């Protein structure tokens, strides 16, 4: 005896710190040989060691057969190890499970209660439908075992059986109910039943309504808090079905709330009231009282001397109330908001869930700023150098910020940061931005968020990949950028501001990561904004510079493609001005710029991504042509004025000037009707191939080709933005917004430079406000229209104008003078109340008439990025995805009705809607009868006389050895018919009715064509039996391997017949 015991193993593990891996491998090797030993003690010990190692992550599925061996040991302490191994390692697809069936059945009928407990406790872990079918008959009698411990375990195991094999309940439920009704039953058995009923309750509440009186009795004088909690939970699912219960429940519940010393019970009472919908409408007096009682208690829990658990559960409860009674929760906003700042992340998240549902235009800013402050403070340590950068722009702000760094929170986990950012975006964008009042503020928040956002993990993921959806959620900065893009597209009024924010972000990105790759996912949408609305940029050539610097450092191909496009758009804007003449200066500037762009694009011509490659090739070639054209075009001299090459001024810009892009509802594309007579299979041209061949041989001069395309494209540019009359833009320009609510708090979560910009903007705006006394002491002006014009001037003046360098006073004066000249509407802004909310128009998503409703600003539909295209498909997909790791699938249970069994018991007819279930039940019962009968006959063959009174389901097949079983099978087959005739009449009469039904059912359901002619009783039996035999025969090869047991073969066939 030199084997290690478990004790030795563990000691060894502790003594081998550092090289445990090696030690464990050695141990596993030893175990592998020991477990093959003939000595059961050695085997069991080895198994115990393996189980211990399994706990530490060493797979033991290879040992499943040995587990089975140990399970079958006659010694209890070894058997226990075996069962533990089975529980820990067996899966439903473990092959030896088939072999275990008999053992389980045998142990279930053992005499010693501790042995019976083993299979009962193990079954929930390994149960499969077929196993459930075979052990059910052995398990049911255990419901009336003399030991209460066995009874309660059996009840729970039956429940788990029912989850995979719902028919279990049909047989078991009457007995369980009997136990529940029995007032002298052991209280812990009753409690176990209540637990099971509670689990079943939410799946099929209507089945348990008849139990309500008994459950109520248990609730009132049960005296067991654990059970009371479950009962209340159960009642919460019953009350929606039976409103009269509410009146009955209210007194005991209020009583409990007022008196119970147990906080858990108190909480569950409140929770039950909420979930049961007892809060009801506020019209009812009595209910109003209970509602306020509940809410005040919950409020008390949150404030209650800082007990975090109570805080958490109270928030959980609020989360449930908010769905039905948002106003009740809104009253508690103060305490809930405090929870957002809790240092416990669990509580924070719950509070966030809640807050998300409470957002309105009134509290959005305060909620978001709270969250922003949180994020800001937690990311501070990393952002130090950023702060230093920003101090350049405004010295005192930075100093102020630095002094603020007093209470630095511990860094938040990245997941949480991402989650919070996602929520901020969601809160702001919900209902098509209905809660956002001040879009300038929102743009600032977005800009700040992009800085805070943790770096995308796309780079890391791309190695491991296969994380598909995850990597997109991880890339939160891209969603922030998308938000910014949405705002730019949808809210014309702030488009200019959004574009400038994008400009800033690009500049920052290009400066920040000089040597590294660009990792922020925000670049893609931001670059798109800069390109699409290039004319609104304050300094397009700088932005182009930044983009060109960024391009070589971008990794993801989609981002790269977008950046290529954006930089081309910018180039088109900068170089494509056809108003000025082709001066020498301009010529050299443009040529240099083109050379630079080409230089940047050229390496990408060989990029692995086709999209990038294509764009790079197209643009390079186009630019090369243009460069040729530009160098060919002589620059204008004093005498001769030359126009710039058309390619530059017409062709390239017109590539990008078309209809303005609007946001389109997600489902809109699907609603485009298919044109009649459209046949996609039809070739575009009858002899396309010959045409292509021709084209190959035809060498068109490329220059011509481009002019053709230029001509082509020119026509397609009816509404280029730049050709719009200035007055239109005036109307669109940002209007003054009241900044009353963003006082000092703002600088706690926005970076200094953003604030500085903001302040400058505000000062500029307010300079024209007669009610605002500026710090410059500038004379207040009654004319309020200068700001928009000023903006336009900025834009028009374009690249060579640095706004910051312009003395403000001077520019102002210019603006005033131009306001008369520029043909501004001249409507005095005074008519507008200074405090009124700006009427910002948020464009709704475009969609087709007759299709899904678009998203109007006031609409309460889905938020803009939800997928409305097919809600059902989505939910289906969601369900698929929802099948969580630890989840128990109980969907089978939904289709089962207990009512059928109830009514059958009482002998009455079933309700019409239960008919189907009932026939199923009859079928199953009949099959069971047939099977039983067959067993009887078999037994008669084996000279085992079974007394008449054997319970229908309670047939216990004494374990037969495999050989015997097979023999019996063949024997029974040959003799069955004869034996059937010889079987006593009484038995037949009992099952006559059932059999008839079964026979017809089998014929219909099975559809295997066995002619049904059975009028007489005896014939009927035979017909059924023949059928049965056929099935058995069919299954035989498989069955023998799997079960080696006649009985199981029969039941398997029975199950199959019963199922369709």
């Amino acid at each position, binding site marked *: 005896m030199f084997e290690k015991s478990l*004790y030795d193993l563990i*000691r060894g593990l*502790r*003594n081998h*710190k550092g090289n445990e891996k090696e030690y464990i491998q050695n141990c596993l090797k030893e175990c592998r040989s020991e477990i093959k030993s003939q000595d059961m003690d050695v085997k069991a010990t080895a198994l115990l060691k393996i189980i*211990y190692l399994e706990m*530490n*992550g*060493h*797979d033991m599925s290879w040992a499943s057969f040995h587990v089975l061996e140990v399970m079958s040991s006659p010694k*209890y302490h070894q058997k*226990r190890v075996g069962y*533990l191994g089975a*529980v820990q390692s067996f899966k*439903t697809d473990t092959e030896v499970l088939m072999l275990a069936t008999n053992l389980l059945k045998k142990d279930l009928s053992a005499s010693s*209660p501790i042995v019976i407990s083993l299979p009962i*406790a193990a*079954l*929930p*872990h390994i149960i499969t439908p077929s196993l459930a079918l075979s052990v059910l008959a052995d398990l049911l009698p255990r419901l009336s075992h003399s030991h209460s*411990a066995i009874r309660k*375990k059996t009840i*729970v*195991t039956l429940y788990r059986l029912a989850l995979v094999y719902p028919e279990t309940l049909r047989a078991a439920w009457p007995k369980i109910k009997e136990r529940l009704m029995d007032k002298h039953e052991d209280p812990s058995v009753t*409690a*176990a039943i209540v*637990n099971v009923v509670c*689990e079943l309750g939410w*799946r099929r509440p209507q089945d348990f309504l008849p139990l309500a009186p008994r459950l109520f009795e248990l609730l009132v004088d049960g005296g067991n*808090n*654990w059970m009371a909690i479950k009962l209340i939970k159960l009642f919460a699912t019953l009350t929606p079905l039976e409103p009269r219960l509410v009146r009955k429940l209210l007194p005991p519940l209020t009583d409990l709330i007022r008196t119970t010393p*147990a*906080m*858990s*019970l108190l909480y*569950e009472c409140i929770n039950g009231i909420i979930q049961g919908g007892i809060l009801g409408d506020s019209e009812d007096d009595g209910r109003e009282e209970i509602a306020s009682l509940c809410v005040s208690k919950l409020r008390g829990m949150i404030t209650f001397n*800082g007990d*975090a*658990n109570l*805080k*958490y559960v109270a928030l*959980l409860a609020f989360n*449930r109330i908010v769905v039905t009674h948002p106003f009740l929760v809104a009253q508690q906003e103060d305490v809930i908001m405090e929870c957002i700042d809790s*240092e*416990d992340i*669990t509580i924070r998240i719950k509070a966030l869930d809640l807050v*998300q549902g409470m957002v309105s235009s009134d509290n959005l800013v305060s909620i978001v700023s709270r969250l922003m402050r949180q994020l800001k403070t937690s990311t501070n340590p990393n952002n130090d150098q950023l702060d230093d950068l920003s101090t350049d722009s405004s010295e005192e702000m930075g100093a102020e910020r630095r002094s603020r760094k007093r209470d630095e929170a*511990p860094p938040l*986990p990245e997941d*949480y940061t991402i989650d919070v950012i996602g929520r901020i975006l969601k809160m702001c964008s919900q209902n098509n931005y209905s809660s956002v009042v001040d879009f300038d503020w929102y743009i600032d928040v977005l800009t700040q968020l992009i800085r805070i956002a943790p770096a995308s993990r796309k780079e890391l993921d791309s190695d491991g990949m296969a994380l598909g959806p995850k990597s997109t959620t991880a890339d939160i900065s891209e969603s922030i950028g998308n938000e910014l893009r949405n705002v730019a597209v949808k809210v014309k009024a702030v488009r200019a501001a959004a574009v400038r924010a994008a400009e800033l972000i690009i500049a920052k990105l290009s400066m920040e990561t000089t040597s590294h790759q660009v990792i922020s996912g925000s670049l893609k949408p931001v670059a798109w904004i800069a390109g699409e609305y290039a004319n609104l940029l304050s300094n397009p050539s700088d932005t182009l510079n930044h983009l060109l610097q960024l391009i070589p450092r971008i990794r993801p191909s989609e981002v790269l493609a977008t950046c290529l496009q954006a930089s081309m758009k910018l180039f088109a804007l900068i170089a494509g001005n056809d108003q000025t003449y082709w001066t020498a200066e301009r010529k050299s500037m443009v040529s240099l710029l083109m050379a630079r762009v080409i230089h940047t694009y050229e390496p990408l011509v060989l990029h692995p991504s086709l999209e990038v490659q294509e764009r790079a090739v197209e643009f390079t070639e186009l630019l090369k042509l243009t460069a040729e054209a530009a160098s060919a075009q002589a620059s204008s001299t004093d005498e001769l004025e030359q126009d710039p090459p058309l390619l530059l001024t017409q062709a390239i810009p017109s590539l990008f000037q078309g209809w303005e892009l609007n946001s389109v509802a997600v489902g809109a594309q699907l609603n485009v009707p298919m044109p009649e007579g459209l046949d996609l299979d039809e070739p575009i041209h009858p002899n396309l191939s010959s045409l292509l061949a021709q084209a190959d041989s035809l060498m068109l001069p490329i220059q011509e080709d481009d002019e053709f395309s230029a001509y082509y494209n020119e026509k397609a540019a009816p509404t280029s933005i730049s050709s719009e009359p200035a007055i239109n833009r005036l109307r669109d320009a940002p209007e003054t917004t009241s900044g009353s609510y963003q006082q000092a708090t703002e600088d706690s979560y926005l970076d200094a430079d953003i604030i500085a910009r903001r302040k400058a903007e505000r000062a500029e705006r307010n300079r024209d406000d007669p009610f605002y006394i500026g710090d410059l002491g500038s004379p207040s002006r009654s004319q309020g229209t200068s700001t928009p014009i000023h903006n336009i001037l900025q834009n028009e003046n374009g690249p060579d104008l640095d706004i910051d360098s312009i003395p403000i006073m001077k520019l102002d004066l210019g603006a005033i003078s131009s306001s008369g000249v520029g043909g501004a509407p001249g409507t005095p802004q005074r008519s507008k109340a200074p405090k009124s909310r700006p009427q910002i128009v948020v464009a709704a998503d475009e969609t087709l008439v007759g299709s899904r409703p678009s998203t109007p600003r006031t609409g309460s539909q889905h938020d803009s990025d939800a997928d409305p295209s097919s809600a059902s498909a989505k939910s289906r997909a*969601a369900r698929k*995805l*929802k099948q*969580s*790791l*630890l*989840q*128990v*699938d*109980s969907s089978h249970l939904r289709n089962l009705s207990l009512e059928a069994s109830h009514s059958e018991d009482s002998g009455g007819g079933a309700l019409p809607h239960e008919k189907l279930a009932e026939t199923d039940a009859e079928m199953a019962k009949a099959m069971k009868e047939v099977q039983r009968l067959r067993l009887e006959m078999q037994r008669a063959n084996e000279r085992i006389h079974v007394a008449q009174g054997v319970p229908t389901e309670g047939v216990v097949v004494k374990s037969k050895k495999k050989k015997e079983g097979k023999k019996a099978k063949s024997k029974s087959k040959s003799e069955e018919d004869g034996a059937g005739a010889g079987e006593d009449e009484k038995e037949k009469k009992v099952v006559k009715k059932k059999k008839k039904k079964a026979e017809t059912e089998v014929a219909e359901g099975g559809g295997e064509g066995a002619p049904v002619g059975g009028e007489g009783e005896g014939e009927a039996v035979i017909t059924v039996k023949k059928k049965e035999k056929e099935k058995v025969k069919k299954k035989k090869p498989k069955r023998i391997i799997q079960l080696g047991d006649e009985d199981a073969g029969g039941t398997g066939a029975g199950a199959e017949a019963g199922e369709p």
Partner: protein
Amino acid sequence: MINAFLVFNGQGQPRLTKFYTQLDTSIQQRLISEIFTLVANRPKGSCNFLPLPPLLAASSTSTSSSEPHNDVPSLVTYRNYATLYFIIISTSTESPLALIDLIQVYVESLDRLFENVCELDLIFNFETLHATLGEMIVGGVVIETNMEKIVQGVRAQGTVAKRPVNESRGGGMGLGSGLGAGLGMGGNFVWSGR
């Protein structure tokens, strides 16, 4: 229902793993380590509930607020005793506060069985841990909360071994301080469910 019951120590080494649904060993280990990272970073005085670990959250985020799905594990409750963490993963049909009590009952039962239980007892007698749990929870459903009956049920299965004598001096790991003694169990329990 209860989906899993886990015990691990301050280093994340599992002492008891019981999953009431089937899970591959490797995924079990991943889940344990994810929960351990969550549990190890809890600030003082925070609540006994954890946010869902990424493995579980991935599958249930979409349903978090809209419609509570009763089948999905959505609650991770933990308690810390001396060097050990006790974890229960459960669905929303369980009462959160009652689960905290359930862990307490489990630990108290172990304390009763081992007399001043400490981590070492649990290491060397993990079979008893399973037996005790088996008297409380079967197939994810609580069957017993009465400590007397639990202890009685475990004792009926055979004698409970004591820890090896020569081990009690300790080998570098956190031991000696009895779990029960270290926490003054039983007394100051505000939301006692019993």
